[in-house]
């Protein structure tokens, strides 16, 4: 009696381009993700920006040019995000400490 021949089970040894071709052929949809600052690549960074219990949030009203407001609203719409998140991301880029929890939808209360 011959022994059955089994195939090795292991992850596919193919590159992402080949998998993308399979996705195309199978018609798998592409998910559009919102611009997000909490897509951290490693555990350490993720911990630093980890979601902690929300910090106290307060309203700040400033007067800025209407054109800038319109541009911000358009950008928010294009990126499927909020004006608040765009402002916080810009502040984060400028060195202010903005936690992942601050960026979560609804973290600022009613906007």
């Amino acid at each position, binding site marked *: 009696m011959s022994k059955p021949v*089994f195939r090795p089970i292991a992850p596919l040894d193919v590159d992402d381009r*080949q998998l993308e071709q399979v996705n195309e052929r199978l018609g*798998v949809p*592409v998910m559009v993700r919102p611009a997000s600052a909490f897509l951290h*690549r490693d555990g350490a960074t993720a911990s630093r920006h*980890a979601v902690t219990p929300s910090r106290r949030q307060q309203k700040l009203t400033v007067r800025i040019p209407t054109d800038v407001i319109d541009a911000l609203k358009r950008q928010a719409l294009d990126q499927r995000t909020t004006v608040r998140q765009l402002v916080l991301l810009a502040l984060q880029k400028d060195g202010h400490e903005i936690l992942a929890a601050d960026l979560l939808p609804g973290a600022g209360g009613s906007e």
Partner: protein
Amino acid sequence: MIITLASSKGGVGKSTLTGCLAGAWAAGGDSVHIVDLDNNRTVSRWFADTARRPDGLTVSTPDPAGLTEHLAEIAATRAPDLVLIDVAGTYERALTVAVARAHLTLIPAAPTEADIFEASRVSRHISSVYEAFGREPLYRLILNRVQPLSSGAQLYATLEIVRLRLPRLKTRILQRAAYEELGLSGQPPHFADRKRPTVAKAIEELNAVTADIEALLRVHDDHHHYLEGAA
């Protein structure tokens, strides 16, 4: 070893199961890394508190488009015993890459029409991806959130799994408070108070699941070595 927890719908308990299984292996002394691909960042949020997070457990939240590179980076820098990938609960392209990179894919599903329908869809997708490269996939449905008091509908749903020929793990995960508490406490059952009956039962169940998985992977690994020896 890489295990992907996949579903094309939300609410099947994927993140909860990911966190609980990670806790079970971490409690056994394994180093476990969770790759959180879910946009909601649920599992990474639960384990955000490093003071409460089990030792040996790390989490990352990469851009799903860079998953392959990220896994290579994790292997090179951390070399964990196990990597668990929690994918977004939608039918989308990152799912293909996550199942292609896994040694085993688990498809959690409650015994409901909606969950089993989607599990069947994911099963077909995994098969299609592997067939494209002339390979056979290794995946199992895992019955999750099973009601302790069985109903006719639940029994029917289980029979549908058989009819659809969806391979499943022997052990079922029951609906228990200990699992749901992970989100609030940040502690998987293995790190919670074992004196509580719900925690003790959850630990017993999770140990049975990890034993099922390890046996499954060992069997396939043995076949692999057998083939290597024959070559």
